[in-house]
């Protein structure tokens, strides 16, 4: 068991972070908005964490403490060597605020676009952000920012933050789907014109859904930066965005459980394949194929997953009594 957690501590944390990232994509999708902006806010959150923890409140090795100075004046001091969790929470708040501001500024013009055009606009945002962080000195260029301090003694320690956060965000989305705002989102997703005709403020609700997703992605970025110990412009790219989208669609885009399960399962899949290849007693040829062909199998499973679970692994009626099998097809967003 100890071996299991030592080996997979980081993976378990990363799986839960992936689930939250999938949720962050699911939120705008709830209002019918196909956005791949999450990686951008994720990157932003990571930079907030990296800059605060290494530049604003750097570790002073002489006194083994994290010290916040303004000019020559010492404002605050936190005993080290572990990074204070309180500062981690401050980082999350800062990242949330920045993500929200940026999301509103970006969302107001961009959310006038629909379907694939919105998708493209959000990809453009992610790409622009990536280039900018690659060039700026503040963000450390290609090398990025490293030696980000650790708030926990082990990787599994992150579970203290990540598990409550995942439960909280899952509960948040679960409730959201059942209150007025959430129903407005669904109305917009199902029929924008009809929703508008019923007096739902389209812009407000779209920007709201988009912003909620952005804030969640920003918070995940904060934790991720600490957990992987370094941050650079390779984090949160277009490719990552596509992966999150796959999490949502394979997991199921009709209930909040879909993206969570999709994120956890799909994120772990390549690692599970890696682990299976290491199981003793496998014929060497099979072990070799599993090891070298890990990504080939992953790709095949993506294809098979979409074909055999066109509504995702988790459908809203999966856990209800199977009285009303959903037969209605989901209208396309593209």
């Amino acid at each position, binding site marked *: 068991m100890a071996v299991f957690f030592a080996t997979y501590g980081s993976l378990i944390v990363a799986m839960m972070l992936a689930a939250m990232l999938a949720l962050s994509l699911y939120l705008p999708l709830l209002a019918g908005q196909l956005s791949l902006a999450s990686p951008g806010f994720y990157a932003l959150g990571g930079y907030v964490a990296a800059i605060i923890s290494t530049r604003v409140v750097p570790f002073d090795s002489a006194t083994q403490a994290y010290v916040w100075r303004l000019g020559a004046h010492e404002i605050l001091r936190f005993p080290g060597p572990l990074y204070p969790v309180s500062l981690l929470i401050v980082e999350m708040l800062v990242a949330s605020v920045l993500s929200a501001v940026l999301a509103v500024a970006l969302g107001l013009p961009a959310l006038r676009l629909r379907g*694939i*055009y919105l998708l493209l606009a959000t990809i453009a945002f992610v790409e622009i952000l990536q280039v900018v962080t690659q060039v700026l000195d503040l963000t450390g260029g290609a090398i990025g920012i490293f030696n980000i301090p650790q708030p926990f003694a082990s990787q599994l320690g992150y579970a203290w933050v990540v598990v409550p956060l995942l439960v909280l965000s899952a509960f948040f989305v679960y409730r959201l789907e059942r209150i007025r705002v959430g129903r407005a989102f669904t109305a917009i997703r199902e029929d924008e014109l009809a929703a508008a005709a019923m007096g739902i403020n389209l812009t407000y609700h779209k920007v709201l859904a988009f912003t909620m997703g952005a804030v969640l992605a920003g918070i995940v970025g904060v934790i991720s930066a600490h957990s992987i110990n370094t941050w650079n412009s390779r984090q949160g790219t277009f490719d990552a965005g596509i992966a999150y989208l796959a999490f949502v669609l394979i997991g199921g885009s009709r209930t909040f459980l879909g993206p969570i399960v999709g994120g956890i399962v799909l994120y772990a899949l390549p690692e599970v394949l890696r682990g299976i290849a290491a199981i003793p007693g496998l014929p060497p040829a099979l072990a070799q194929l599993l090891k070298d062909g890990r*990504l080939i199998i992953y*790709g*095949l499973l*993506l294809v098979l997953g*979409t074909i055999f679970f066109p509504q995702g692994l988790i459908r809203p009626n999966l856990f209800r009594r199977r009285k009303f099998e959903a037969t209605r097809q989901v209208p396309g967003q*593209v």
Partner: protein
Amino acid sequence: MSLPLFFQQVLNGLAIGSVYAMFAIGYTLIFSILRIINFAHAAIFTLGAYFTYALTGSAFGYNGLLKNSALPIHLPFLLAAVVGALLAGVVSIVIERLAFRPLRERGADPLLSLVSSLGVAVVIVNVIQYLVGAENYSYPAHPYGNLPTAINFGLGTRRIPVRTVQIVIFGVAVVIMLLLTYWLNRTKTGKALRAIAEDATTASLLGINTDRLILLTFFLSGMIGGLSGALIGSSVSIAGPYFGISFGLRGLAVIVLGGLGDIPGAIVGGVVLGLAEAFVPAQYIAYKDAVAFAVLFLMLLLRPQGLLGGAQLQKV
């Protein structure tokens, strides 16, 4: 900016843009008929480049399953590129059968084909690496015979050179675009395809064999993609299994700029993106990619129907 420099940058923009356009034509063709984005297009593009490499009789390296193997035939580059393109077209048909048709038959959300085509791309890229390794490959020297490596458009002492291979790519892209446009607008098959694009169900009620025509579309798209891979590979060498993937995002930008599914638009979009990149001032070159995407972003806000599109979204 001096006039010769301006002229040089325009030519540079056209040259860069022609590569994007070339990539985007096959990409946009599928979108124009099926309204889906085929992420596997980038992988087909890569496959075309590798098929062509194999057909020229060149040997593969020592890192994959096919260690140091070479085909016993040595086709000249241009012939190899054509055959390679046909093979890429065949692979594209297989992909349609395995990854797109089952979804279409189930009437699944078109977004899902994004994921299944992504899965196909992952498979193809990794199979290539499994077979022939991750190293770069390049075609035998002088693929275009004795043409000079660059052509000078300048006068007198002020040289304005453009690489010959980029002129070839530009020419091929324009020819393909013209042929496709003619085919779609003037021939019976083309008109049938456009009918499918308008409404597949009605089209099949009218007796149009939609399945066969969709296969044809995938074949053509794959062929054009494969040919692009070979031609661009001859310009910049095959950078490994991710060769095409690095064009994918730019290609997506181009087909949106040109108006989704608009074939002449792919050329215009490519050239506009190329020009935007070429005219980034040298001191801001670090932001070149950001500029390209900023142009895309503004374009989307100002003219979401694309550069050529009218008020109504043009379907083909």
